[in-house]
């Protein structure tokens, strides 16, 4: 059974692996083994979700992050090229900012006592990916995939999953073992 009307989101670290070439980078001194392992996990996840006909939500801030390697002129070209594509792009809106405020409040003022006083908050700990989590929640995504285990500490209605995990609500029999994907290819 194929899930219909299902939506997932990737954080910038997972996107990074998927936006790259379809083939994994060649092993060399410059490329750590961990990178190749994560790359392969991301590609497998992508194939698994594609096969199950999941749709993907691309937060606009992920596009910004992806485009930061380009010059401002090239960034203009990049965004213009995406204009007429029907990609589901999730903007950071007024309501997203309210969702994010709730998420951050729960994390830094309710759960983590050391951040009780706003003066003690270490802003670097307010993860960039929490912005993506807020967009995913606004769009009612089934899951947000991340390589950052700490993101799961943020309180959200969206399931925060690692790349090895299946989306929530998927029956066991619907799960596609990794080897079956390899066989079909």
């Amino acid at each position, binding site marked *: 059974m194929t899930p*219909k*009307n*299902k*939506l997932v989101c990737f954080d910038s670290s997972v996107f990074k692996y*998927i*936006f790259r070439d379809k083939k994994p980078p060649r092993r060399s001194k410059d490329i750590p083994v961990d990178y190749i392992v994560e790359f392969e996990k991301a590609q497998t996840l*992508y194939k698994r*979700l*594609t096969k199950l*006909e*999941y*749709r*993907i*939500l*691309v937060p606009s801030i992920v*596009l910004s992050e*992806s*485009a930061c390697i*380009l010059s401002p002129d*090239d*960034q203009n*070209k*990049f965004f213009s*090229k*995406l204009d007429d*594509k*029907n*990609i*589901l792009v999730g903007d950071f*809106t*007024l*309501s997203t900012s*309210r*969702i994010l405020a*709730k998420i951050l409040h729960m994390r830094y003022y309710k759960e983590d006592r050391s951040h009780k006083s706003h003066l003690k908050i270490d802003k670097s700990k307010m993860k960039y990916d929490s912005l993506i989590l807020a967009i995913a929640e*606004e*769009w*009612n*995504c*089934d899951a947000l995939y991340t390589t950052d285990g700490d993101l799961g500490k943020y309180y959200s209605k969206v399931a925060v999953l690692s790349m090895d995990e299946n989306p929530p609500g998927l029956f066991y029999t619907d799960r596609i073992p990794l080897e079956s994907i390899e066989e079909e290819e």
Partner: protein
Amino acid sequence: MNPVLLELRFIGKNLKPKTLSIKELTTLLDRFDRAMKAIMVSRHPHLEIPPNYISLENIKHNSIGLQCAVNSLDEESYEAFSEFSEGIQSGDYDNFPAESLDSLNYFSTFNKKRNSTMVVGTRKSGRFKKLAEFKGIEKSKLSSFSDTRTLYGELIQIGGKTNPKAILREYSGREIQGDISKEMAMKNSHLLYKEIKATGVVKISGHTLAPLSFRIDSISPFKALTMEESIDSIRAALKSSK
């Protein structure tokens, strides 16, 4: 097995059915019915609710106890009643659909006029279980806000005799009901069961941040890319922009 009755009790000095006009009594019931239906439809937009899904079973005479039996749509009815009670108890009326909030306003006015309190609960085998108590609406608890938004998905219903609506099933599976003009309903009826994008003003609960209502200003066809197509497009755009 004894059924579980849904009960609204209005408690106040000298408050009993014979001190009420027939109109007041029937309006209380009508408002309760509307509040329930609005919650059910907001949670299950495609739900067809038969007129007698709940009916008046009994009126208790110590105070006014309106006891209603659930005749059909048991699961949805109890779910709506539970949500209604929780909203009253917590003060999060903001999450209520407009019509439920109208009903609550009526109960609030009634309580003020009669110096009464509304107690909401269930009754099984004669035993009453109190779920919530309501005196009046605290205006400070109402804090919804509006945001212009474009929503994407499949148009699963459009039209309506008096108040035309469009129901959109988003790609996440969430269904959202929007108000549209009759002209827009006629113009876009051919998009039924097709993918669309709808732009309009969404009213959002300040407490739950969930959409409460959606006024649709425009509808147009939209064919979302698959996951593979989306990734390929972004990848290609990145490469060709360097």
